[in-house]
């Protein structure tokens, strides 16, 4: 190598290429964290994602161990493999985080989400909505003469599919819980 062969005013290299050439493919991972249920712990996790520019597709949290005061946070995130590794390492160093599991890597896992969906319509559309709900095993939890609220549980893409079908039939509102997930087997 010949040192100092700088061409004056050189623009040979892009200075933007500051990231190493890791894989660019975006992956979707489901992470399960066991955290101490202390004030601010959720803010720490969310602050990490916003502060470092990571994505959150879905996040759920609830205390799962009432005596040990442990909560389980399930996060669905997307990123390149390198970003996913960083996310896990960064989560792992938050002091009240006990465990970080990547269910996508450690899997197979079971993912479930609950949604309630309001569909407003009359006549043929109303009948069709009911028929589809039956196929998707969605329950009617409220109805008026011109509306239904369906309750559906399943993997997120099943809920997406159901919502897509309901849209032309008068879907007006959706509320989703976000993903809860567990590894299969023991």
């Amino acid at each position, binding site marked *: *190598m010949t*040192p*100092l062969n*700088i061409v*004056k*005013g*050189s*623009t040979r*290299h*892009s*200075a*933007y*290429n*500051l*990231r*190493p*050439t*890791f894989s660019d493919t975006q992956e979707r991972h489901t992470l399960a964290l066991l955290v*101490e249920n202390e*004030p*601010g712990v959720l*803010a*720490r996790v969310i*602050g990490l994602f916003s*502060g470092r520019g990571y994505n959150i597709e879905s996040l759920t949290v609830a205390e799962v161990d009432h005596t040990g005061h442990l909560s389980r946070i399930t996060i669905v995130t997307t990123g390149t493999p*390198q970003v996913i*590794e*960083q996310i896990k*390492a*960064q989560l*792992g*160093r938050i*002091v*009240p985080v*006990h465990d970080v599991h990547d269910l996508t890597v450690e899997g197979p896992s079971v993912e479930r989400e609950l949604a309630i969906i309001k569909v407003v319509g009359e006549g043929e559309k109303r009948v069709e909505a009911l028929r589809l709900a039956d196929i998707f095993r969605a329950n009617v939890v409220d109805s008026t003469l011109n509306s239904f609220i369906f309750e559906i549980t399943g993997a997120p893409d099943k809920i997406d599919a159901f919502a897509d079908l309901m849209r032309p039939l008068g879907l007006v509102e959706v509320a989703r819980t976000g993903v809860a997930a567990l590894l299969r087997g023991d």
Partner: protein
Amino acid sequence: MTREMTGAKMVVQALKDQGVDTVFGYPGGAVLPIYDEIFLQNDIRHILVRHEQGAVHAAEGYARSTGKPGVALVTSGPGATNAVTGLTDALMDSIPIVVLTGQVPTFMIGSDAFQEADTVGITRPCTKHNWLVKDTDSLSSTMHEAFHVATSGRPGPVLIDIPKDVQFATGQYSTPKPSTSHYQPVLKGDLEEITELVAAIETAKKPVFYTGGGVINSGPAASQLLRELVDATGFPITSTLMGLGAYPASGENWLGMLGMHGLYEANLAMHDCDLMINVGARFDDRITGRIDAFSPNSKKAHIDIDPSSINKVIRVDIPIVGDVAHVLEDVLKVWKARGRKTDAANVKQWQSQIAGWRKVNCLAYTASEKTIKPQHALQRLEELTKNHDRYITTEVGQHQMWAAQYLGFEDPNRWMTSGGLGTMGYGFPASVGVQMAHPDALVINVAGEASWLMNMQEMGTAVQYRLPVKQFILNNERLGMVRQWQELLHGERYSHSWSEALPDFVKLAEAFGAKGILCSDPADLDDAIMEMINYDGPVIFDCVVEKHENCFPMIPSGKAHNEMLLGEAETQGVIDSKGSVLV
């Protein structure tokens, strides 16, 4: 064992039980009960700073120079917000400090009470961890846990927010016990990875050690083990700004600092090596330059206690998560057990290649008999102080880089500078903290005039506590580093990079009751420096230096290690428009 006492008393008791002897602080309504308890005892010295930022930097200086956690105590609201810069600084440089803030009483939290701020909310991203203590019974255990978190694993700043009613109320105090918290970072490295590193050491033809602040943070044993390994293998070693002193500057294998203003031979060794052993450094952008051209042909090993540092920026081949001292001990053990092998012939050739680069003499500068060159001032300072029991702090700018280049550090914990955050105003209060910890040592803050003015109020602290800190100001009447970038990147348009109304530093010193020395003639420099050293008290040394000197070598932003600029002649139009977007 538990005892009943007030929250305020618990704070003082817990500090004592944690071995704290010095607290840097500033009182206010929300911490008055704690100040009352401080008044009633003599074990802990409280140093009244002049600004809360100063308290935190002083605690950092104390921590960096002793290896023990530093402690700061400030009031709610503005006291806490003034501490934020220091907390961020400590987070970036992994400095263990414990900051105690007062808070409005629990029953007023959320009511926009006088001097209320959401301190734990504001400081969540700039602490390693923080706590709002809502009942007095949990105060002592939280304090003990805070010291545990600040000092274990990768060290960092923690904050405890203590509402005033919690300070007044009584509760049960518990003495420190070995931590039962789940937070227990792993210290030992994986033996398989360590063996892989040893195998790489045995066969490397062009190895280099690249060390960082992690070696210093790991403690004196880590520096000892590093020296043993480096000297036994004969591998060259460079260090980041944060790691200076872990290996002695006079050591045979020392290459000098690397990075943006690092030495030519250090950067080229990094670029051309075939084995890079990163010990407690983090591939910061000041170090790597352009990522895709960073040391293209090397196998890389990385020893770090923080798993998130590994593969964050640079993909490494041999990742070792663990404490530097623990890992180096095992590396040495395995390497010795396998017969202390290196490829001595090739390493020797590598050393002579490096010796060739060294001949470039990258720190050469044009001397002057008329004006004091800043490099010359530091060379003289080094010559006249190196045999003293000396500690150096710095501000941020050109002077900081020159200090790193021209001063030599023989031991760890002797060099305190703001690396990750680059905080102007750090050096002076840090020198106060260092001097508190080492009352008889020669403590010098190498400063730029602009940085120094950012926390100059701490002159009051230095004078009040008779701290003989030496403020060695390289006064170029410029925001020198900004000016240098404007020259190189912004067509010499010097937008707001000089001060037109600098104070008379000698009179300023005298106004505070300290000594001021002005020196502008190179012929007077040695005498003036001696006068500073020999004066028993704080000194402001106004060293009037060349105004337009640039700091070289320099790897411009967005360039690779082997695209370094060595001097003025090479600077014209060298940073392209994309490079100028970077900081």
